[in-house]
């Protein structure tokens, strides 16, 4: 087993990880560990754009952006974080432009901007052009540009190194004569997929930027590799997970497949219709109609289908209509997504509406951090040297519902912050001694998976998990469906102990990898369901049919899910709360 020593280790090489690496790599000895090649990360699938109040095409300012973010998140947003993000958005976009990102341009040669769901001028008066974009491949361009700059700065990548454990030790710290136990980061344990060997990375700072957990659902826009590994590792190591009940369903996934059609389509003028040809969003959000935030649109679509106005042979989807747009305009602004419709459904978007249905898209929750991207071990204790950014983290800029484009913004703003903070910390701190037998638990985990001969198939358990999550923890939830989901997850977890991994080799054992990933998926499904059960109200992406109203009195708080085997009623997940940070906006009714 090899031991590597770095000042900073970054786990994950998507947008947040590479943005952090660019900063950290220039300041400290940095390694980036990724279970894929960096350019395979799912940031590359993001389409629509990245909002910043550049005011290049019309009047705008970051304060309005903050308001939209807070309101979009149904007031569960930590407003200090939202202010940071909206303010630093401008510099983040300019940073990317300077790094070479090929944004679309205005006639004057400035960065062009377009409309996006939930982004408005002057506190909700009308849609505003705020999203900076590069056709409908903004995420692709961001990922490529960040990778290019990592190459420029000679960032050290360990490609296809799957991080399986976080090494933490308890240390006694004495501050002002008071001695207390503090969790400290020592490094990570990773598994080299190519050789099947374990590698220990000792590091002063560790940045988690490992992305989301969309694969708990069947219909999802997420990559096969988004299995909540980072969240799972932190959770197993006693770090709480914040706001995991809030999962975003993107309104326009290709029906049946979940492949994303960007909100930019609606930003450019596409509209949703039901089987009767009706533009139904006029009923649900009279002011901004199809450009309402995602939770509202997704719920409206699901409602149309529930009430029998779905299209298609099984009446199980609605239609995204672009036929009134000029084909040349579509080609210029939305080339990729129209190709998806053609390739995968054989539908010609110039002349036919495209079948769409909400698809699991984004985890608003994750590892709790403060605005410095420092990970919190509880409501306010920082874990020195541990950072998180991107979808894996929850600074809470998204609250209960993320606005479109704010994720690309999140990774850039907080990725940068995490990279700088991690490097600065590493420059002043000492290495923490690696515990004895650092890989013992990981070896146990792998050996158990490899040697178990119970005959259960990983793929079968995963499929059943995804089915139960789609059926019970989707757009609409009730206590009954959530309890049912927990019950099924418990049985799946029991079956998971009896899996058989067919591939017994060391080299590129992706069969084993999928088994390990399933373990994280099961954990995360449990946390998401338990947190949803705990929140007896409807807010943002979380809609409880048995509690359809927002309940600020009891639930204007973040949820914090801890691993606790004694909490048997909720499958070993204990739920606590954390106050929301308010600065300038008081909760109001959320209407569009």
């Amino acid at each position, binding site marked *: 087993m090899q031991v590597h020593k770095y000042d900073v280790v970054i786990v994950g090489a998507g947008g947040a990880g590479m943005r952090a690496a660019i900063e950290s790599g220039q300041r400290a000895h940095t390694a980036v560990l990724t279970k*894929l*090649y960096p*350019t*395979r990360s*799912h940031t*590359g*699938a993001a389409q629509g754009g990245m909002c910043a109040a550049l005011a290049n095409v019309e009047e705008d300012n970051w304060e309005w952006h903050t308001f939209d973010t807070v309101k979009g998140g149904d007031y569960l947003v930590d407003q200090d974080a939202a202010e940071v993000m909206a303010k630093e958005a401008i510099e983040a976009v*300019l940073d990317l*432009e*300077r*790094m*070479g990102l*090929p*944004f*679309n*341009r205005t*006639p*004057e*040669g*400035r*960065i062009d901007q377009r409309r996006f769901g939930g982004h408005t001028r002057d506190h909700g008066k009308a849609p505003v052009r705020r999203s900076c974009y*590069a056709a409908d*491949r903004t995420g*692709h361009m961001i990922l490529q540009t960040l990778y*290019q700059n990592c*190459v*420029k700065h000679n960032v050290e990548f360990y490609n296809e190194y799957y991080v399986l454990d976080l090494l933490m030790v308890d240390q006694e710290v004495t501050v002002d004569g008071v001695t207390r136990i503090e969790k400290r980061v020592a490094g990570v344990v990773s598994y080299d997929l190519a050789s099947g060997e374990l590698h220990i990375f000792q590091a002063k700072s560790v940045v988690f930027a490992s992305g989301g957990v969309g694969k708990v659902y069947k219909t999802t826009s997420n*990559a*096969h590799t988004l299995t909540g590994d980072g969240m799972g590792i932190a959770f197993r190591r006693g770090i709480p997970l914040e706001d995991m009940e809030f999962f975003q369903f993107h309104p326009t996934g290709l029906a049946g*497949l979940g*492949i994303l059609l960007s909100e930019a389509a609606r930003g450019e003028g596409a509209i949703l219709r039901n089987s*009767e*040809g*009706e*533009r139904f969003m*006029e009923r649900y959000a009279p002011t901004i109609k199809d450009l309402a935030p995602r939770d509202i649109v997704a719920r409206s679509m699901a409602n149309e289908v529930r009430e029998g106005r779905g*299209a*298609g*042979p099984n009446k199980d989807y609605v*239609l995204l*209509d672009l036929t*009134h747009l000029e084909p040349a305009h579509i080609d210029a602004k939305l080339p990729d997504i129209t190709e998806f419709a053609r*390739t*995968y*459904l*054989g*539908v010609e978007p110039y002349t*036919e*509406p*495209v079948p769409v249905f909400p698809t699991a898209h984004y985890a608003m929750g994750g590892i709790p951090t403060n605005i410095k991207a420092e990970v919190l071990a509880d409501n306010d204790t920082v874990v020195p040297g541990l950072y998180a950014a991107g979808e894996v983290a929850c600074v809470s800029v998204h609250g209960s519902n993320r606005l479109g484009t704010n994720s690309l913004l999140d990774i850039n703003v907080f990725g940068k912050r995490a990279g700088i903070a991690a490097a600065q910390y590493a420059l002043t701190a000492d290495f923490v001694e690696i515990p004895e037998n650092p890989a013992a638990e990981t070896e146990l985990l792998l050996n158990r998976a490899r040697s178990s001969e119970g005959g259960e198939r*990983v*793929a*079968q358990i995963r499929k059943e998990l995804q089915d139960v999550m789609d059926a019970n923890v989707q757009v609409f939830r009730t206590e009954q469906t959530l309890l049912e989901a927990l019950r099924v997850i418990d049985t799946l977890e029991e079956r998971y102990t009896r899996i058989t991994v*067919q*591939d017994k*080799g060391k*080299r*590129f054992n*992706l*069969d084993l990898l999928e088994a390990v990933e399933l373990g994280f998926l099961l954990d995360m499904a449990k946390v998401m369901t338990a947190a949803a059960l705990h929140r007896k109200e409807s807010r943002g992406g979380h809609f409880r049919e048995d509690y359809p109203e927002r309940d600020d009195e009891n639930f204007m708080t973040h949820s914090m899910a801890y691993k606790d085997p004694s909490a048997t009623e909720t499958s070993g997940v204990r739920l606590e709360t954390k106050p929301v940070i308010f600065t300038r906006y008081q909760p109001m009714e959320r209407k569009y």
Partner: protein
Amino acid sequence: MEKEPASKVELAPDVAGGEVPTFDVTLKVRRYNPEVSDEAHWDEWKLTMYGTDRVLDALHKVKWEHDGSVSFRRSCAHGVCGSDAMRINGRNRLACKTLLKDLDTSKPILVEPIKGLPVEKDLIVDMEPFFQSYREIMPFLISKGHEPAKERLQSSEERDRYDDTTKCILCAACTSSCPVFWTDGQYFGPAAIVNAHRFIFDSRDDAGDMRLEILNDKEGVWRCRTTFNCSEACPRGIQVTKAISEVKQAILTRKV
């Protein structure tokens, strides 16, 4: 351009598709695992697949229901991450963008690793040489002078000049379709040239000359024999051969 669409329209009765049929296919996969044997061999499965299924779905079906040791890379599954370039019926494709119904399902579907890179296991090849070439052409914006306080200006026409080559997802389908690369791994290959093109023709970049110098190497653009395999293999529809031609012209006009 911005006309308000109608609140209600008449939809054609057959709008947006009908039932999707299922069908049977035979999938033959080129297997190789140096832990087991130095010899490669073919494995074959008969599968019942759904109308919208892609080759990747067939591979998953094999891995998840028949033989878990079948190894291949994949991630996004809709053609934007570039993980699953492989040779399907003799041509480089992305498994996630190749619909089974578009192939001849009366014959077995052959799936092999891409050519010219060392095979590690089954469909997984060593991508390091590929990324090495990419890194060598300095794939990043180099701009002399002061960083501007705001964005650099660039007209839409200037941006269009290199738009095509910004689409590259580094899947290696082009490079590993090139007959020159198969026999001479030192050739920079189409993907590296495409990414150089992306910067050479970016009006904001000042290091075009350096990149042209790199590609003027004996393993550079002059090895291109315009077989168009790369253009046909590109899952993003990049006109690769055209891009390489433009780089050749740029080197020529600068030197001659």
